[in-house]
């Protein structure tokens, strides 16, 4: 069948979740998501009003004002890495968003990656992790072939912390290597220089295909202050590296513009000159249609407690267009759901973990907990992942996984090898993959389902995400193993020793629990962004549409020739 046999999925919320439970869950999530919104606002305020005014006094716009003027009216930029360095002190200073805004932004109908130094935070200096954050955005742009736009206003490396962002494999200079790779792979780069652009920062615009400078912009290998020290010469940075030098004399930039507004208008014009998005072509006669079951209900469907189950089908139903879905390989590995649905009118593959108990086909009549990786499910994931890769379908991995099955049976079945096959598949896939950590992202399950170490283009967390090798309680038991009986009760009768062990176990558990916090992950770039459940659908729309935007760089098969159909016939039989 050349058609994609999508069918209605899910049901109205009141048919599976009573008002009271829904309300309670929504409230629990609501308070966490309110914190998320507060922190977003806090980060977006940069160093605060005083610094905004300082920027305005120079006749310039702030980074986020530039971004807002650059994008298509009525659209919202989608920032990533908002919480990098969140809560971290550098001496007396903080670096909201690591001093750089990186965002997917819609410009002239195309998704672009915008990288804008935050001139309200230490004049756009690079902090520890700022280079990594910029490189991460560049990598997303490279993988999706999105036009990349640099809004440069950067005073250079934050020197007191230079050790942390200079010498490593992902040190600041790797940004320019990424510039070069983007260029080498044919990804258009456009740079607008609005102010300082000193030292290393000077190289970033140069590799871009088009470079604009305002009258306040200068690009120098070394600023006036440094030259004064080294060469005892008096000069201004604007004098030696301003637009008159670089646009007219050196040719290091292309166009001289009077002010920020003009520059932003020019960048929009540049993007308009690029090929338009191929997404409408790939949609064909289909269009984006919202899920029949409302996505905003997601904010009350998942219980906060990661041990409580929910119906994964109801989650999927609130993410795919019209709540229509084709479940592929429905009868094997029931602990997983794999299948295809449209997102924004474009086809995408979905993987999600079922929760609660499922039938155990290897022990008839028995149940086993889902949310875990067993032989059937692992094989199913690998086959599905390969088929999507073969067909050029973007894969959306929705994780709530506690890990691999363990024990004698698991080892005897060779789960190590099945798991490795899945890891090999995901590691060598070239189709765009995106990962969402709905709740648990535990152990090798996080890896096997395309967690961040497996290079998904983007990994999103929710306020409930928990990344860990093992749960705190489990580690506490493992640590004090020799002092516990078979029911994990403390063996000794000595009160002092008992207290010490209890204390130690509690401390171990608390420490792991704290480390699993999504804010910790986001601060350290262990995840790309934390999003609200109600926003998830719109993020997936972005991921899928961006995957189909650029033409000619990856395989995109039409549904007639999907290998998924072959898989379906092989497993389901000829009907």
């Amino acid at each position: 069948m050349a058609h994609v046999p999508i069918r209605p999925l899910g049901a109205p919320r009141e048919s599976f979740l009573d008002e009271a439970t829904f309300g309670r869950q929504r409230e629990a999530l609501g308070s966490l998501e309110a914190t998320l919104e507060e922190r977003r606002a806090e980060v977006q305020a940069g160093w605060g009003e005083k610094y905004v005014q300082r920027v305005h006094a120079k006749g310039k716009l702030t980074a986020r004002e530039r971004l807002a003027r650059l994008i298509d009216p009525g659209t919202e930029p989608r920032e990533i890495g908002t919480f990098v360095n969140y809560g971290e002190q550098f001496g007396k200073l903080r670096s909201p968003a690591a001093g750089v805004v990186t965002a997917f932004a819609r410009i002239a109908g195309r998704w672009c990656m915008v990288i804008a130094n935050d001139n309200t935070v230490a004049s756009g200096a690079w902090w520890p992790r700022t280079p990594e954050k910029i490189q991460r955005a560049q990598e997303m742009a490279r993988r999706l072939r999105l036009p990349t736009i640099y809004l440069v206003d950067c005073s250079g490396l934050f020197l007191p912390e230079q050790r942390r962002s200079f010498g490593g494999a992902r040190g600041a200079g790797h940004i320019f290597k990424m510039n070069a790779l983007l260029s080498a792979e044919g990804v258009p780069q456009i740079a607008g220089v609005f102010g300082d652009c000193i030292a290393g920062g000077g190289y970033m615009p140069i590799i871009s295909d088009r470079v604009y400078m305002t009258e306040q912009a200068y690009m120098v290998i070394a600023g006036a202050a440094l030259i004064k020290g080294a060469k005892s010469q008096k000069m201004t940075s604007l004098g030696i590296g301003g637009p008159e030098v670089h646009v007219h004399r050196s040719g290091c930039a292309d166009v001289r513009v009077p002010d920020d507004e003009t520059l932003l208008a020019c960048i929009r014009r540049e993007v308009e000159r690029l090929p338009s998005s191929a997404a409408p072509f790939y949609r064909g006669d289909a269009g984006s249609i919202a899920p029949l079951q409302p996505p905003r209900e997601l904010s009350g469907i998942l219980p906060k407690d990661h041990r409580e189950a929910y119906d994964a089908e109801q989650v999927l139903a609130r993410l795919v267009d019209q709540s229509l879905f084709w479940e592929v390989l429905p009868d094997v590995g029931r602990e997983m759901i794999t299948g295809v649905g449209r997102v924004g009118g474009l086809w995408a593959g979905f993987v999600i973990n079922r929760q609660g108990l499922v039938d155990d086909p290897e022990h008839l009549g028995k149940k086993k907990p889902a949310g875990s990786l067993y032989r059937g499910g692992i094989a199913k994931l690998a086959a599905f992942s390969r088929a999507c890769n073969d067909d050029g379908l973007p894969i959306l991995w929705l994780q709530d996984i506690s890990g691999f099955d363990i024990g004698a049976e698991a080892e005897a079945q060779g789960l190590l090898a099945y798991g490795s096959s899945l890891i090999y598949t995901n590691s060598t896939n070239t189709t765009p993959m995106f990962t969402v950590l709905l709740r648990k992202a535990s152990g090798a399950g996080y890896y096997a389902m395309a967690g961040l170490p497996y290079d998904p283009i983007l990994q999103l967390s929710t306020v409930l995400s928990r990344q860990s090798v093992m749960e705190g309680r489990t580690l506490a038991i493992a640590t004090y193993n020799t002092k516990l009986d078979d029911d994990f009760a403390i063996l000794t009768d000595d009160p002092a020793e008992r207290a010490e062990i209890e204390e130690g176990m509690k401390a171990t558990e608390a420490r792991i629990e704290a480390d699993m916090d999504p804010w910790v992950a986001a601060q350290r770039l262990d995840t790309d962004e934390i999003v609200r459940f109600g926003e998830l659908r719109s993020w997936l729309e972005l991921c899928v549409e961006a995957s189909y935007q650029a033409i000619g760089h990856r395989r995109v098969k039409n549904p007639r020739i999907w290998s998924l159909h072959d898989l379906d016939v092989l497993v389901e039989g000829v009907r």
Partner: protein
Amino acid sequence: MPKLFHRLFVANRGEVAARIARTCERLGVTPVFGVSEADRDAPYAAGQEVVVLGPGRSDQSYLDPVRLVQAATQAGCTALHPGWGFLAENPLFATLAETHGVTFLGPPAHVMHLMGKKTPAKRAMGAAGLRLIEGSAGILSGPDEAREVADRVGYPVLLKAESGGGGRGMRIARSADEVEGAYAEARAESMAAFADDRLYLERLVTGGRHVEIQLLADRYGNVVHLGERDCTVQRNHQKLIEESPAPGLDPAERSATLEAAVRATRAIGYVGAGTMEFLLDRDGRLRFMEMNTRLQVEHCVTEERARVRTPEGLVPLDLVEQQILVGAGHRLAFTQDDVVLEGHAIEARVNAEDPSDGFKPAPGRIARWEVPAGEGIRVDTHVADGYRVPPFYDSLLAKVIAHGATRDEAAERLAVALEGLVCEGLPTTAPMHVAILRDAAFRANAYDTSFIPGWPAKEEG
């Protein structure tokens, strides 16, 4: 004859099912009826291919998209006509049919979806150049914005739920003081009923007349209008009498709006037959209300007036035929200039309801059924002697359409025809229609949607 579908699934019942089948038979397309158990013995299905969908209750038959699509594929149909009502404007049904190998005779699902959403539809139509009822540009941010907009457009105003329907989530504010309360009430009701608290605002237009435009588009951007219809005679938003042309409509307003409607239809990528509904306000302006993305009950009014100029002379136009042609990928075979609209047509919907007893539905058996005939009279019906009106569905028995050179001639022909209608065993609305058609206010065109001219009939004596 152009190449069409061999087998077409009729995913509806009653009058529209019979109507679709009539055209199919003329075109050599085999109709297959999806019927509920209650309609298994319906006269229109006698001797025809039928697939029983399920029990009489429509949620287990005519409202179940999965059953319908399954039945259509199993019956080997390559196209499906949704009729009107039931799932005719359901984008999920359209997608499901298309993704299972049955061509849906209607617009693309996403266009249907867009037109089914209130503020996005209004925005799209406004952008395409149609005049709207004044109100908020989209969803309101809160009661403050509501008051601002209300002050600008003038009171009274209507606060409406974005997900609303059936009058729920709707409140009137007659002055600035009432806005906050109305906003809160509408919001709470909408949240409770639709889990969606988004509201928008429109100026409340009382009275006014209901005018709509029939449109037809192929897959290649060719769009024509087939004139307008007036459906002002209504009871609780149920149309009773429809006619064309709309009496009293300013010719300049008419032609400008017809042209704008054609442009808007093209702009949204519409395909097939569709209708844009307008409110004709007291200033004689047409304001867009909504688009019906399907064939309408009253399409016959247009068919009775429309002729297409061909080398062989003027030929009648069949909207169901056009839907099938467009669905099979054909281009419209004529342009706007080829469309000729002649005379005046009026339609009366005859329901099995007792108009003198609060329009109470009257299901049951019709012992004898005789339809009138005469010059300029057309009767569309699925009823025959001995027909039993099932209790599950609407009670439409027939549509009687009269055509005449003038409005008065058409009205009189229709009244005479309705007097000749025989329906033994059940009350019908025919006597009410006769009263309306003979009423002086109706003839003088002095009425609006707020009352029915000539009904209830004044006591004699």
